[in-house]
């Protein structure tokens, strides 16, 4: 990429544009019983769901704000819009059915093209509602379900009820309660036993309304011996006022199944991104979280894997980039609850300017998890003297046959490496960008190609003029 390209990118980051879309319904500000009832009405929900939402609202109102972690004082929960219905068309099966203005947004983001080339299915959410969902026909024939979560609730009620809010109940934390009360949009995914979905399924989340809260909820059930890779991408335009994204992701990975969940969030830097992601992993199954946090003002996200039966395994790869004005409070949790379970966490963070990246994690080995093994590696790179990083790893071990290790390092870019690259003809900031790319390589190489390319481009952009 040439310097001119980089500069052009720097002037207006390409995903932070504003769309000119007129929604068909906008809820009043604040989270009240009335708003919840309106959401439920607009969705034509069964009675039990409305009851669930109202119960969650009570829990939300009772629970205090977290007393730990990043500063959330800029988040005005009473001034947010909790539901915006972008269009009358619901969950189209082809791009042509989507209103022109919204479609243009996704075309600018390159989604339809990607669907044709590299994806097994695509879902797209615009503000509060899913506007598009489609999965390749051959997968549909094999029984793969990939639909908006509202459709999942209505069409597959038994399957839905069996798992919904069982992985992350509303009592879990204040923001899980908030999501449970106000949830709208997200995907419902079911992979039948033994079905292996080779190409990834992708959901794309877009927030356009200012001072808005997006509360998508995704439920993924990977049945015995099945395989799937689900990707979630997030962007929003740059407004001067704060917005909120509070997702809840529930994943059930049954015996012998494999699943991978990839999130790359590049929310604009006025977004509070407070997400609960959890997977229940059963016997000999394997679940992978790949978590990239580049955007947002504050992110609090700790993907967790509960290893519930013997032989369950998990791997959590996490990367965070914090610039001035950003606090990435991210990490991972592994609960090893059965014999011979194992897990790995690899976390890499980069802090630049006055940015702050924190790793917050938990490895817990329950009594009786014989031979359980877990290892955590956290590396932080600090670019500027004002940059900040923290590591808060909790390790709790109730089992005497468990092996648990944790290691973390903090460093700056090595001057000698920069000097060496300069002697080979690279400019100083190019050398720095190359070293940063090398630092995140172990995680970037696990990303789908287009995300890896995007990540590298972003780092080059961010590193430009950052040294010397």
């Amino acid at each position, binding site marked *: 990429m040439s310097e001119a390209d980089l500069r052009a990118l720097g002037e207006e980051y390409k995903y932070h544009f504003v769309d000119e879309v007129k929604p068909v319904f906008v809820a009043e500000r604040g989270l009240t019983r009335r708003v919840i009832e309106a959401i439920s009405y607009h969705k034509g929900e069964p009675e039990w769901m409305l009851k669930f939402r109202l119960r969650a609202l009570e829990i939300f109102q009772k629970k205090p704000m977290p007393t730990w972690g990043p500063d959330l004082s800029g988040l005005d929960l009473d001034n947010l819009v909790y539901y915006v219905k972008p269009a009358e068309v619901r969950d189209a099966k082809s791009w042509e059915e989507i209103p022109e203005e919204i479609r243009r947004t996704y075309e600018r983001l390159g989604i339809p093209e990607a669907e044709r080339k590299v994806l097994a299915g695509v879902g797209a959410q615009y503000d509060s509602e899913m506007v598009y969902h489609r999965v390749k026909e051959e997968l549909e024939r094999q029984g793969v379900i990939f639909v908006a979560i509202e459709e999942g609730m209505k069409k597959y009620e038994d399957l839905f009820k069996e798992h919904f809010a069982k992985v992350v109940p509303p009592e879990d934390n204040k923001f899980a309660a908030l999501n449970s009360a106000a949830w709208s949009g997200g995907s419902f995914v079911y992979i039948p036993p033994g079905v292996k979905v080779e190409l990834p399924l992708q959901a794309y989340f877009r927030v356009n309304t200012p001072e808005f809260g997006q509360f998508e909820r995704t439920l993924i059930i990977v049945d015995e011996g099945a395989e799937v890779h689900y990707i979630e991408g997030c962007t929003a335009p740059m407004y001067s006022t704060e917005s909120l994204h509070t997702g809840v992701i529930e994943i059930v990975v049954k015996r012998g199944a494999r699943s991978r969940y990839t999130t790359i969030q590049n929310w604009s830097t006025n977004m509070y991104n407070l997400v609960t992601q959890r997977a229940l992993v059963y016997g000999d199954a394997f679940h992978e979280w790949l978590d990239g946090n580049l955007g947002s003002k504050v992110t609090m996200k700790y993907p967790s894997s509960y290893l519930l039966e013997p032989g369950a395994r998990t791997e959590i790869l996490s990367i965070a980039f914090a610039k001035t004005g950003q606090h990435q409070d991210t990490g991972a949790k592994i609960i090893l609850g059965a014999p011979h379970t194992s897990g790995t966490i690899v976390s890499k963070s980069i802090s630049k300017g006055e940015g702050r990246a924190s790793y917050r994690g938990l490895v817990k080995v329950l009594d009786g998890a014989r031979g359980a093994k877990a290892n955590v590696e956290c590396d932080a790179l600090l670019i500027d003297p004002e940059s900040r990083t923290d590591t808060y790893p909790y390790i709790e*071990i109730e089992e*005497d046959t*468990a092996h648990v290790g944790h290691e973390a390092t903090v460093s700056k870019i090595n001057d000698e490496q920069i000097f060496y690259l300069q002697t080979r003809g690279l400019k100083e900031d190019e050398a720095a960008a190359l070293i940063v790319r090398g630092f995140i390589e172990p995680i970037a190489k696990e990303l789908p190609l287009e995300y890896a390319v995007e990540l590298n481009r972003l780092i080059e952009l961010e590193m430009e003029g950052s040294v010397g």
Partner: protein
Amino acid sequence: MQVLDKTQVEAISRALKEPGWVLEKRLKALEAFARLPYPSKKDENWRYTDLSEAPLEQEVETPKGLSLSRDELPELVKRRLEKTDVSGFLVFVGPDLVYAEVPEELSAKGLVFTSLAEALKTHPGKVEATLFRGVYVEDKFAAENSAFFTHGAFLYVPAGLEVEKPLGVFKVLEGGKASAGRSLIFLEDNAKAAYIEEYLSLDLPPTLHLSATEMVLRPGAKLRHAHVQTFGEGVWHFHRQRALLERDAALNDLVVNLGGRYARSEVASELLGPGAESEMLGLYFGHGLQHFDHYTLQHHVEHHTRSDLLYKGAVKDEARAVFSGLIKLERGAQKTDAYQANRNLILSPTARVDSIPQLEIGANNVRCTHGSTTAPVDEVQLFYLQSRGLPRSLAQELLVKAHLADVLNRIPLKALRAHLEAVIEEKVRI
């Protein structure tokens, strides 16, 4: 029955004939003590600690003015004196300093080693400049100590004086009443000393013990400090210490928890001047229902400072060990080199370990690394030793001792090391 109130604080201060400013500080601490609630599992730093059986509101003992000859000292101390290599020592029994032995030649060179109460009379300026600077009202127990302490040791080493042999404090806890004492160590420029605090008792009914150690190291001063607790059963021990290290000062610190029912050590090193260095070692071995908490802080305030922490321990039976350590770098603490390691051996299915090695880094040109491991005794090593003819239980004892020896080997105080080895030897066989 006496209560923890103003009357008692005044009675303690009167009995010790303290100057007015100390009483004032005590009363301020009492206010904090009264205001602060007892910690619970809801407090982040107490989340793993169950204090429901702790004798928290136990009446605090008052000074009795007891004094003993060397022959009359409690057996526990006499046995230790046979094997120690300290050149001078103070013995506290319950609330009182009962015996002191300080080499003439050191006093002649300006070294002061006496009780706090005595030092307040003979060297008021030096005490006033340092007392409560390290530990005052940081939490409920620090405040309780600052309000109610009945005894303390004061060590002052003048500029340039290098004391080769260690100095020691032996504290014998009598039990039944809460006991609160302090140590204040003040080393002037380029002074050098070693200071060992030992805490001893028989098996006791539930008893609360509060200790605080403050260390002030002026530029270039070098201190080796050891806090060694081998209480009998029944003791609930709350210890807090903080060292203030100025330019080029160096601390070698050791905290040992082997006895008691519960022991908590809050250990902080403040690196306040360039070139300051702190080595922080910890050793613990829990059995039965013992619970040991270690909360450490390596606080790098200035640039070009170093800290190196290693806490190693083992737990068996239903014992629990907690390590929560923080390396904190202020903005501007460039060229810091900080290391933190916690290594645990877990020896029984009902033992438990919690480890939280933490970093808060506000400067970029630094080297900060930490690690934590928890595992059982290595099967391959056990197998090897068994193949050489050792029974499994003996092989296991050997490997536990080897695990703890990593810390012991870094302590040049030979007599102390031998003592700790003997206590560990006893504990592996319990």
